[in-house]
């Protein structure tokens, strides 16, 4: 699924990474537990999370995750945006809950990791 489609389905704002709208993700994973995200072997993932801090972006950087969707209208901080820009990570912000965002994307064909 293209990032532009994720934006459309979840009514998301782009906090940073607007020029990557055509990038594709294969699968998605929803978690607030960064320790769990660090155990994933797949790449080209969308991470859907309720967490919003610098460590989220650091975790995405180390786990080779290039697209992160913040649920429930969480705002990215300037530090998060700076770090995401430095590493080519797209940060999206949706008003939907993790449950709704995951459900909407799943029903539109985005595959789960597990």
């Amino acid at each position, binding site marked *: 699924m293209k990032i532009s489609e994720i934006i459309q389905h979840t009514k998301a704002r782009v906090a940073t990474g607007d020029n990557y709208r055509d990038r594709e993700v294969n699968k998605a994973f929803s978690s607030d537990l960064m320790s*769990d995200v660090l155990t994933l072997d797949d790449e080209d993932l969308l991470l859907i999370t309720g967490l919003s801090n610098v460590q989220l972006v650091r975790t995405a950087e180390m786990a080779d995750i290039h697209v992160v969707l913040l649920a429930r209208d969480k705002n990215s901080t300037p530090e998060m945006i700076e770090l995401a820009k430095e590493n080519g990570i797209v940060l999206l912000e949706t008003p939907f809950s993790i449950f709704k965002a995951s459900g909407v994307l799943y029903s539109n064909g985005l595959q789960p990791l597990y």
Partner: protein
Amino acid sequence: MELFFEIKGGDFTQAGTASSKIKKVLKQLNLDAKTIKKVVVAVYEAEVNVVAHAWRGQLLARIDETGITVTITDEGPGIEDIEQAMAIGYSTASKEVREMGFGAGMGLPNIKKNTDELEIISKVGKGTTVTFRNNF
């Protein structure tokens, strides 16, 4: 090649500085993405451990032609029972650390999963030294 970093205990804003720098260096060596990810995930987990549990620490990464050896030494509370600390789900992390998305008792097992060799030496009340190696 050697890379050296100081790690401050409790300073989560800086956690990941060393792994980020090491990732950039490994990318320049044209290693495949899976190998790089294994190394940097292990380094990041170790950095987060120092920030979450210890007072201060140092990280030394030595890159040679066949692999990378990383040694993280901290001054901190130490680990009472290393076998228990290696069990998935066992954690002594604070509420603050857990709120940041860590402290689920998955760090050390994940370091083991991502590395080829791992050694942990710890003295209660003094500190811990974690050494691991990844072969390229």
